[in-house]
């Protein structure tokens, strides 16, 4: 069996021997001249050089043969690994994609429910405030306050009139008392006068008889006046009693009037306090709703941002789906029947035709995978109208 060394020797000695033979022939046919010897030496040298080169090449080739065999064996194993692993990887990606899709779908559903509830709450608050401030409760409040003021004015008026009546009755009784006193005084004076007149008439004798009669009449008149005065006084006394009773009644009425005034005042104050508190409450409520509206506007803006963020799951899902499909296709191609060679260019063309996102094209061309997809896409809110 030939050894590599023997084969190597052949690759050197054959060219070297040929060179030597050629050199001898050259020298012979040049009649062993100087030029002939020079040419022969050059020829022999060339043969040796060729032999060396061929031997070295042979040695290199022989050393590569085990590596090539190993590479071929590795390729077979790699093919087996890839054809088994690719479908598994594709299924792993499919599972991850589906898990992500389902989770984001649930999140967006919850989000949609929350948004709907927020809108309903805001709508109800707005409606309530509109009812309060837009002419319903507040209007009734203002009307009630106005009515209350009218009632209070009427009550105060009635109180004042009662006082006036009391004063007038008192003054009337005083006047009557004064008049009765004057009548009695007049009657007394007339009686005194009639007594004096009777005495003078008695002194005058017969001439004074007529005068005595007049004095008697005067006395009767005085008695009548005194009687009338006494009756008046009695009446006045009963009036005084009535007056005293009235005064007591009026005093009680005064007291109750004062008490009424206090009660009315207290009621007025209490009702005003309630009305003021209610007004304060509605003012606070209106202010709260204004704050809520401002917050709602902020929330709407954030909802808008969240809707944009949710859509990145869709892009990820598409990219993963394409990778999984490519893996499956590649695995099927590698399990091809013998004799059907892989067409790399056609396969790659097919892969690119399935791209649906800008990120896939950018990654194909290389260099942009590190950039945040969001940073590249945030400007991409374009609409084309046809």
């Amino acid at each position: 069996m030939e050894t590599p060394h023997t084969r190597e020797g052949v690759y050197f000695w054959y060219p070297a021997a040929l060179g030597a033979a050629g050199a001898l022939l050259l020298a012979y046919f040049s009649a062993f001249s100087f030029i002939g010897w020079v040419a022969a030496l050059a020829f022999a040298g060339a043969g040796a050089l060729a032999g060396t080169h061929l031997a070295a090449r042979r040695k290199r080739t022989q050393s590569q043969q085990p590596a090539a065999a190993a590479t071929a064996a590795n390729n077979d194993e790699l093919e087996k690994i890839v054809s088994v692993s690719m479908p598994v990887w594709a299924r792993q990606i499919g599972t991850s994609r589906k898990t992500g899709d389902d989770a984001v779908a649930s999140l967006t559903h919850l989000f949609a429910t929350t948004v709907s509830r927020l809108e309903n709450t805001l709508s109800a608050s707005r409606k309530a405030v509109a009812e309060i401030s837009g002419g319903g409760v507040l209007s009734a409040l203002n009307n009630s306050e106005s009515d209350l003021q009218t009632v209070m004015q009427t009550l105060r008026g009635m109180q004042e009139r009662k006082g006036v009546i009391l004063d007038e009755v008192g003054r009337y009784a005083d006047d009557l008392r004064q008049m009765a006193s004057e009548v009695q005084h007049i009657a007394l004076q007339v009686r005194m006068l009639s007594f004096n007149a009777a005495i003078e008439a008695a002194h005058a004798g017969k001439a004074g008889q007529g005068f005595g009669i007049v004095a008697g009449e005067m006395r009767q008149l005085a008695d009548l006046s005194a009687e009338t005065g006494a009756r008046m006084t009695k009446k006045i006394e009963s009036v005084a009693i009535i007056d005293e009773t009235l005064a007591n009644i009026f005093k009680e009425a005064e007291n109750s009037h004062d008490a009424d005034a206090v009660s009315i005042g207290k009621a007025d104050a209490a009702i005003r306090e309630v009305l003021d508190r209610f007004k304060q409450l509605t003012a606070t409520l209106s202010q709260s709703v204004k704050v809520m509206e401002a917050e709602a506007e902020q929330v709407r803006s954030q909802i808008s941002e969240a809707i944009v963020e949710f859509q990145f799951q869709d892009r990820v899902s598409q990219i993963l789906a394409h990778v999984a499909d490519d893996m499956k296709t590649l695995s099927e191609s590698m399990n091809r029947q013998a004799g059907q060679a892989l067409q790399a260019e056609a396969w790659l063309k097919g892969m690119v035709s399935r791209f649906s996102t800008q990120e896939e094209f950018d990654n194909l061309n290389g260099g942009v995978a590190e950039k945040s997809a969001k940073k590249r896409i945030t400007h991409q809110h374009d609409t084309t109208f046809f």
Partner: protein
Amino acid sequence: MSKRILVIDDSASLRQAVTIALEGAGYEVVTAGDGKEALSKLDGQRIHLAICDVNMPVMDGITFVAEAKKLPNYRFLPVIMLTTESRESRKREGQMAGAKAWVVKPFRPEQILHAVSKLIMA
């Protein structure tokens, strides 16, 4: 009566996102997961506008637009394509099929509402 919009996308979360934006503006929304299901939804109810993804299983968006336009009641149905695709060649396909607008995802709610208000049938 509020206008009814058909939203077609194979992604449930995308359908939900579009629905949030549209219902917030007072539109009624009907959804479908692919073009074939969407065609069945056109039957039996009045649809005023469709928003349609391009890449979907069973029937893609471009095919849906072409098929919808063949229906007697929907020859003039305005369709907005809502997709991750941004290539001019795909936009031309959509235009040739009869779409009225092309919106590239991710969309902002005000963006889709602007397109809807501009195109929706009276």
